[in-house]
């Protein structure tokens, strides 16, 4: 299975880069997961949540204790669209 391409709006990409500067290791791990197996719970080490109910289709990956990335996957085009990245809602 091929790699997924990670896409986002410009402002989300900016937030991504900011987190990458501050937490390079965990962001690298997150990027690798999104590129290789964004839907596979078993490969996430317990970090992947698949939203349910009205939010079915959206996924959440726990970057660390306080930061998360929310995304959806276009399996046909092999694209991961990052919708939001940052602090977990309190």
């Amino acid at each position, binding site marked *: 299975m091929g790699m997924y391409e990670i896409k*986002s709006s410009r402002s989300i990409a900016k937030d991504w880069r900011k987190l990458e500067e501050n937490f390079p290791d965990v962001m690298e791990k997150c990027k690798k997961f999104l590129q290789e197996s964004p839907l596979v719970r078993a490969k996430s080490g317990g970090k992947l949540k698949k939203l*349910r*109910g009205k939010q079915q289709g959206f996924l959440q990956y726990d970057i660390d204790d306080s930061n998360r990335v929310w995304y959806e996957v276009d399996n046909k085009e092999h694209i991961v669209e990052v919708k939001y990245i940052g602090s977990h809602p309190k």
Partner: protein
Amino acid sequence: MVTTIFSDEIVNATELRAKQSQWLTMASERPVTVTYGNRKLTILNREKVRNLFVHSHYLALFAKHCNELIKGTKSDAFPWTEHLDDKEKRQFHEELVSSIMTAVITENWDEVETLLDDWKATAETENNPDLMRALKTKVPKGEYVTIK
């Protein structure tokens, strides 16, 4: 009677010492109770004990949840459900019943844990207006950038 389900082998401390290996092997399959004076101590397979604790934890939580549903009170078992709408609350309840019934049979509680994690993440997402706006926003294809 349910009390007869717990069928253990009973041995005194002297017998246990005499045939230690035999009793310990047996204890990995079914409970062995050692009598010591007027005390009774049971040797159990650790995995089975762990499963009993997990089983008891989730069933207690589920009973609390059902009681709160019947009484129509705010959820203390799963406080985050207040952020779900009525349809989602019903869906959560149905999925929880189904996964607990499966776990009781299979003794695998990971699916229940996963279900709760997913629904909690959903509820917390729905409680964040900024995040909800972002999830609903459709970015025109030409405005996408690739993260490398």
